[in-house]
């Protein structure tokens, strides 16, 4: 039986978007730096609204930031 796990590429996209710091990204998205830290660590799953905001700030699609990975057996 397999199950899926939410994987995020936020850190990679943040670095590629001009090397934004967590604080700068947080300010642009209108959230706390703790939110960004927790998302990058995989401790917090953001809601749809924040996911869309992050994608807009980083100039990518939500699917680029977050993806479901199948984990097997």
């Amino acid at each position, binding site marked *: 039986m397999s199950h899926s796990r939410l994987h995020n590429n936020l*850190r990679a996209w943040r670095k590629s978007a001009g090397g934004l*710091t*967590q*604080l*700068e990204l947080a300010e642009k998205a*209108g*959230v*706390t*730096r*703790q*939110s960004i*830290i*927790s998302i*990058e*660590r995989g401790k*917090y799953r*953001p*809601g749809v609204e*924040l996911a869309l905001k992050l994608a807009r700030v980083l100039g990518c699609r939500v699917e680029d930031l977050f993806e479901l990975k199948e984990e097997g057996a």
Partner: protein
Amino acid sequence: MRLSMVAVVLVVGGYLGATLGGGPKWLIGLTGLGLCGPFILRESGLKPWRDDYQRETVMTAGMHALLATIVLLTAVLMVKGIGGTYSQDEPMTHADAFPASTVLIVAATTWGISWLIQFWGGVDGARRILIIVMSVATALAVATPIILHIQGHPYNRGGLPETVVQIVLGWGLAMSCRRWPRPVGGLLLLLVCYFFWIARGSTAQMRDPWIWIEVGAILGATFLVPALALLLHRSHPEEDSA
């Protein structure tokens, strides 16, 4: 001043005012206001949440506090029995009564500590707990001689150097958490053992069997949880230092 700071001042000030200072009982209402006020303001929309993550961590911490309270009260009822335990022939003694203040302390400390550690992470959460503890300790050290003077009681100046050393040491630990988390965690663990040893001596005379729950909750919240948070933290080199 930030809402959380006001809340901490109300919670601690109200509790200490109603217990240590011999102040009026209604002061404990300030503790309730400090605990519930920010939550009510934010849920009613009068003061917005900083973001969804803050709201989620506050809610999760609330659930932890509820669970801790249920476990505590269930354990108490298992020991004391449910209703009808007390005979009218045998008047209830102080040792029979389970203090409501213990429930409040356990619920409030669990909520506060859980939120701080979740929201700020192990090291920053522990640092904030220690800063709050040391702020209260410093305020008490300054206020005690003044209160005693107002009440006409003598103040023993002999203990002053020891108090100053303890306060300086405490602030030193609080300010060193980020740089040396594990050594500070180890020192805090030693302090927990030391304070338990001190508390063991000073509570030996008391007949209140429930005092150890309060002692455990307070020492656990102030030193044990920060010590474990610092000792068990995993470093995240990818985290920006911003």
